[in-house]
């Protein structure tokens, strides 16, 4: 890949120019420089960054409130509302969408009220009750609704840092996109009239934040197991490693399941549940990283530079802090990033089975779970939008992780 880039002269600077900065660059800077050479990784990183930003500032980017408050009772099961620049009525620089109104089912209520069985038969056979007919909307092409930027909408908190005594909650009520009348449903609505696009955006951040919590917990448990095992060695190492192996052979998802079931019996608020799930995913995921950290510590401990530090009279404490910890600092960061998709997958799998988060919360897993519904499969394909976003998100993570892994490859630093 590098050779390829070199051929096309992408991003090449003459070596003399950045000589000094190369020589005085630390490990992380080196990894960053190597990462920048990988086009696929950089592109994926941009996509990933955009998705995460959109997720983090989801209220700003979403045109509609994703909760039940923002549900549009007049537009349930509604199809995506496309934007246009022109139609047979002319061209417009500002994109617009049409006005949708629900087609009133032609149900002869009087006849029904009269108790006529024939009328009921006619109703069922006409297909008006069939699910596929419930999302028929009339498009009024004459009534254009123009897309506006920075529209005033419901109030939300942009950044909420009200932790403890700190009261720092920046609230705003502007949204990037919107229309003057009614609501804009870029990706349609679900059966309650909640906007699919807005829900998805909010779900991204919730899923990622679960992953972050899980990864922190995972890091902590792995460091504990791997660090203790690697540093003390001997019998402690043997015992800890056989337990780790025993945990590693049992498939993970069933373990998560059991814990999630146990959680579901407890009386938890959605937020508590959310954190509990993150903590469980993180805490039980220690075998692989723990084992790797242990090996890493063992190899680093036998490096000559550690012996050199010992011979220089450094105390064990100093060796750990000055030499060992920095040596796997960058390693841990990279490993954590690489593990993101796996943790996200664990969350979605759990939610998918209905044992993770549940409906009022918007997580990608919750939204994916709905895709299982035959009704949605047959009549509301737009509800597969979160699936596409999910696949994109994971792909972006995997590409970034892969490029990072190459960039952090310790073998390339010796050359």
């Amino acid at each position, binding site marked *: 890949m590098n050779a390829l880039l070199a*051929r096309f002269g992408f991003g090449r600077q003459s070596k003399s120019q950045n000589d000094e900065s190369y020589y005085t660059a630390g490990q992380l800077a080196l990894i960053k420089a190597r990462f920048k050479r990988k086009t696929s990784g950089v592109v994926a990183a941009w996509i990933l960054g955009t998705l995460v930003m959109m997720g983090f500032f989801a209220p700003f980017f979403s045109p509609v409130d994703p909760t039940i408050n923002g549900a549009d009772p007049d537009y349930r099961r509604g199809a995506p509302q496309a934007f246009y620049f022109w139609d047979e009525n002319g061209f417009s620089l500002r994109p617009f969408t049409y006005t949708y109104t629900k087609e009133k089912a032609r149900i002869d209520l009087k006849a029904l009220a009269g108790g006529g069985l024939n009328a009921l038969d006619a109703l069922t056979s006409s297909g008006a009750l069939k699910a596929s007919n419930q999302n028929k909307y009339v498009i009024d092409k004459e009534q254009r609704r123009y897309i506006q930027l920075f529209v005033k909408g419901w109030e939300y908190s942009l950044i909420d840092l009200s932790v403890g005594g700190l009261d720092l909650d920046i609230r705003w009520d502007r949204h990037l996109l919107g229309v003057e009348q009614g609501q804009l449903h870029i990706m349609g609505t679900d059966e309650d009239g909640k906007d699919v696009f807005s829900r998805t955006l909010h779900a991204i951040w919730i899923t990622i934040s679960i992953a972050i919590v899980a990864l922190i917990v995972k890091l902590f448990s792995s460091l504990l197991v791997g660090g203790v095992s690697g540093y003390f060695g001997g019998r402690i190492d043997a015992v800890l490693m056989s337990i780790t192996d025993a945990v590693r*052979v049992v498939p993970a998802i069933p373990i998560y*399941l059991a814990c999630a*079931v146990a959680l579901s019996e407890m009386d938890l608020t959605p937020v508590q549940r959310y954190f509990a799930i993150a903590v469980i995913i993180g805490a039980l995921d220690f075998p692989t990283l723990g084992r790797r950290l242990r090996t890493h510590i063992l190899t680093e401990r036998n490096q000559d530079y550690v012996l050199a530090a010992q011979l220089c009279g450094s105390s064990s404490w100093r060796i750990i802090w000055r030499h060992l910890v920095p040596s796997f600092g960058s390693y841990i960061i990279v490993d954590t990033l690489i593990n993101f998709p796996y943790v996200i997958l664990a969350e979605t799998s759990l939610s998918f089975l209905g044992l993770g988060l549940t409906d009022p919360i918007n997580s990608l897993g919750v939204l994916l779970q709905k895709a299982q519904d*035959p009704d949605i499969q047959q009549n509301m394909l737009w509800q597969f939008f979160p699936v596409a976003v999910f696949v*994109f998100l994971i792909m972006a993570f*995997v590409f970034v992780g892969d490029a990072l892994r190459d960039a952090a490859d310790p073998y390339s630093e010796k050359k």
Partner: protein
Amino acid sequence: MVIEFFANTWLLWILVSVGTGLFWLGRDSQYFNYVFNRYSLALLTLLLVSGVVFVLMEVLPGDCAEKYIAYKNTQGETITQADIDAERARMGLDQPMVVRWASWVTDLTLRGDMGFSCSKRQSVNLALGDRFWMSFLFCMAALIFAYLIAVPFGILSAFTINKTWTDKNPQHTPTERLINSIGMSTQKVLDLVLRLVSYLGLALPNFLLALTIILLYVFAGEPMPTGLYSDEYRNVPWFGDNGFSWGKLDDFIGHIWLPIFVIGWSATALQLQTVRALVVDESNKLYVDAARARGVDGIALWAGYPVRHSISPLVNSIGFDYNRVFNDLPIVAVVIGLTDAAALLIEALSMTNDQELAAAILFLVALVIISMNFFTDVILAAIDPRVRKSVLGN
């Protein structure tokens, strides 16, 4: 009397005699000494696994007594706490966990008895029976599927490493350069496609893949191949009055590919990466250059050197691949409506709270993985001189 004693303790005798046999052989053979050590380690790990599983089951809410009494409750009997406690005492659930664990392990090692399933109201061994084997076969078929695809394509992908797009070597004739360049670019594109596919294996997890396939069936208007049989064949016996039922077999095959493909999918993707990395690693070694310097070329070079040397690390990972595949099986079972052990596991965990059954399934999966690891280790030590050297010393 004697027969009964042996019938109740048969498994223990087998385990012990295998152990002593290996120990005896290991007195003067380093290899069997290694096998014996590996065997003891496997048994120890199994013991630990059973402990882990037991602790896990302790976390699950409710117990068999409650379930049983609740069941009776529906039959119109009024139940008091005293009844529940009496039932607990009868089932031995009032004992501390360690005691129950010890008795479970003892029963298991003596005669392979894995306890009593209260939701199925029969012994776990019976309740699991065929379903466990069905899951096992699914996983093995998925693994074989994964290897059949991943190994050749992984090797193919490894070929394309370290090649540049265009051949600028002035020592080549223009036509040669053109042909080389075209060949190299195709390889590069192929490599990119393979990489993309293997990333998709992660990004499109099994349950989404299953959904997608089902969706395609919905669009095509075909009946979905969920479950194992269509309705018409569900109750047809394999061996009916007209001999073997070929129609049922046909139907079965028409359904079984879906779970195998779906659970094999992400294993394939991961395996592709592994094979590729292994072969690339080996092909950069000096002995490959040395073989080229002796005039070995073409398929003899690739198959005889890098590929041959990457087989054993690959074989080594089978156990953990099985883990990965089984890990995905429960969700897939839910999505496409299977009735195997994985589905039973989900049922036992999330609906019936049948701890004994769930523990037994998890333990059996671990047993399969540990025995696979044991056998691959032992076989590799026998056939691969490098492994033999590292485990036996020289």
